């Protein structure tokens, strides 16, 4: 049974590692246990242990969800430039991108699960078991596209890993169409998630048609940022053959994406300030704080980080230097995380629809649960990368080997 052998091999790979690996796993394990304990408390007492209330009915959980949908989408969108520019290790780009997408999607689903009041009724979201309000509710669209995208990535990754493990060549007739479908699906999950906010007339801050393009632009920054760092690590420890030029190219693309993101943000700011309607108050919450709100304390550093990263990636010298390139990646993470997380959710809901300002800051439970979920995601990603590593190494012994997408295709 090759499948059983494959699973056995996976387990033995996971059990092998140096002390850094075990320290990392133990660190994640501690955070996961703490997160589970906190979630248990939330199950016992209800969502009252979070800081969310009727006025601010979504918070940290949904903010993280939104950010991670972007990561999941962008990791796979990286396949487009990989294909256009004929990057040599395109299989690795696909594989790592899809593995990142899987981990991000698991985190997305967990964040939704911990946010809802009745996780025991989760099945109501699905056909046959429940009564999905499809196609009217954007949330049921989101469930649909996220599930499809998850299954798609899972199939591609398992297939690649499994064929790699058994030493067989994968069948391009199966794989290429799947990868080609996954790209538009990546775009669709993020568009649908943007529409989820976008379609709410009661919340003027979200009800702006620029939201979906902004989501895509910022996602195209945050997803590759993590892959750039990962490529470098794997190049060191696993001999992944990715060229410096490819990394520089990704950085360059991120600079363009960040430019578009900042430009769209500026366009939105112009509209808000020049028209100066009563809706300006939400933007004021974002930028300056109103009645004690705190998001603006993060908005400015995040903007500064995004602008700095943009400059670092724009100037050829700094985008080719590894220190500045990695610094840029970290800055982008901070910038986009703030913008797409709390910078989106809080000004959208504060003040509430009747003008009340409730100052939301996540509670300890929310931080612990979120840290637990991130740790689960990182753990999954670590384990997936660990199985993939020998397969990627194998390629070195098989130089004639494997190219997923032939340039003349």
């Amino acid at each position, binding site marked *: 049974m090759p499948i059983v052998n494959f699973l056995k091999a996976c387990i033995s790979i996971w059990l092998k590692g140096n002390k850094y690996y075990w320290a990392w796993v133990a660190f994640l394990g501690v955070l996961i246990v703490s997160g589970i304990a906190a979630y*248990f*408390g939330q*199950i*016992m*007492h*209800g*969502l*009252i*242990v*979070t*800081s*969310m*209330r*009727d*006025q601010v*009915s*979504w918070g940290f959980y949904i903010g993280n969800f939104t950010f991670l949908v972007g990561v999941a989408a962008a990791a796979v969108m990286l396949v487009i430039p990989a294909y256009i520019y004929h990057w040599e290790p395109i299989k690795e780009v696909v594989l790592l991108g899809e593995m990142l997408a899987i981990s991000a999607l698991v985190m997305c689903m967990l964040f*939704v699960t911990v*946010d*809802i*009041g*009745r*996780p*025991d*009724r*989760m*099945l*109501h*979201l699905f056909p*046959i*078991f*429940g*009564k*999905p*309000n499809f196609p009217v*509710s*954007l*949330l*049921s669209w989101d*469930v649909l596209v996220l599930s499809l995208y998850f299954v798609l990535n899972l199939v591609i990754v398992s297939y690649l890993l499994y064929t790699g493990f058994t030493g067989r060549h994968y069948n391009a007739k199966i794989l290429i169409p799947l990868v080609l479908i996954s790209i538009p699906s990546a775009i669709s999950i993020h568009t649908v998630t943007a529409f*989820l906010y976008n*379609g*709410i*007339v*009661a*919340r003027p801050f979200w009800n702006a048609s620029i939201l979906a393009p902004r989501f895509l632009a910022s996602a195209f920054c945050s997803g590759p940022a993590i892959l750039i760092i990962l490529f470098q690590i794997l190049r060191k420890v696993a001999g992944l053959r990715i060229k410096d030029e490819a990394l520089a190219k990704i950085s360059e693309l991120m600079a363009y994406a960040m430019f578009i993101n900042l430009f769209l943000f500026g366009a939105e700011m112009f509209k808000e300030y020049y028209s100066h309607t*009563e809706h300006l*108050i939400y933007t004021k919450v974002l930028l300056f704080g109103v009645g004690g709100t705190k998001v603006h304390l993060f908005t400015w550093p995040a903007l500064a980080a995004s602008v700095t990263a943009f400059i670092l990636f724009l100037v050829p010298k700094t985008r080719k230097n590894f220190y500045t390139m990695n610094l840029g990646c970290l800055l982008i993470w901070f910038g986009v995380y703030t913008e797409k997380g709390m910078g989106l959710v809080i000004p*959208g*809901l504060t*003040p*509430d*629809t*009747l*003008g*009340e300002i*409730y100052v939301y800051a996540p*509670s*300890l*439970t929310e931080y612990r649960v979120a840290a637990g979920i991130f740790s689960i995601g990182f753990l999954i990603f670590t384990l997936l990368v660990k199985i993939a590593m020998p397969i990627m190494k194998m390629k070195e012994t098989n130089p004639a080997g494997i190219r997923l997408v032939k340039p003349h295709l």
Partner: protein
Amino acid sequence: MSLNNKPSRQLNRRKFLGDSVKSALGIAAGLAVPGVLSGCGTKEIENFFQKHFLELSPAELKSLLARLERENLKKYGKSTVVSAKPAMPGVLFGYGLDLSRCIGCRRCVHACVKENNQSRDPAIQWIRVLEFSKEKGIDFAEANPYYCAPGSGAGAADSSNKLPAAPPPQLTGEQKQILADPVSQYPLYKEKETEGPGCKVPRPEHFYVPISCQQCENPPCVKVCPVKATWKEPDGIVVIDYNWCIGCRYCMAACPYGARHFNWAEPKLPSEDVNPDMHYLGNRPRYRGVVEKCTYCIQRTRNGRYPACVEICPVGARKFGNLLDPNSEIRYILEHKRVLILKNDLATRPKFFYFYGL
């Protein structure tokens, strides 16, 4: 889509297959998430498999209502009647509120809490009364929901209309645990002090706008619900099935009037305060983790009575009636008074009309 003359459903093949798959997977899921299901008593299992309200056969509905009554009896030691009386044909309910009369005394708020079995702790109130200054008019950025009113304790006309009851003297183990848990100490906004015997309403140069669910004809909350747990009934009342809602709170984000409230904790309702006259889609006790809101007192109005807030209002600012009846008071108001609706530009088409009667 009237509830009473629903065609009796045949057990067709698809449905049968669907049901058996559902049961099989449901059992699998039930085994997989024992923690979430918080124990597996028969009650939990029955709840888990309950169908959507609109898909229940008359027999299933009957046994469901009986089950809820049994649960109420067990929980509150009080016999209750849970009805599922459908909408009457030819009725579309509408509400009128006279802004020139309302004095902001919040008696409606408390009458509503009492009538509709709202949680006393954490306090959930379906009506919010906003105070505006006459100079600025209705500008939500200037609204004050926390103005001080005398409260019903201080010389209020109706003594039955009392403030949220004091917590029961004997704390249960769980309550003690909650009190000991520092993270659950975040104040709910409704616990802010808004009532005191020294306060006088109406304050000079101010006026009051009570806001609850506007029963929109074009309700954004219904549109967004991912599981059809909330819908508009034929008589225009927007209702929620508390046994179907997953608590995602998308509807709360979508409602432009802050009308929807979430059960952040287990709702607490002292037995002596339970209103035994209940409706499935209305004031029956709610569960933790689901959303609730005003239903125009569906348990009363479908029986030809006025909503509790209409009856309690000491100045007669509240009017209620059938919009389809040309002789109704509400039609008279719409035809003869200056009427306004909130957030007209959103095209939600509220059936809650504010007017100037004087």
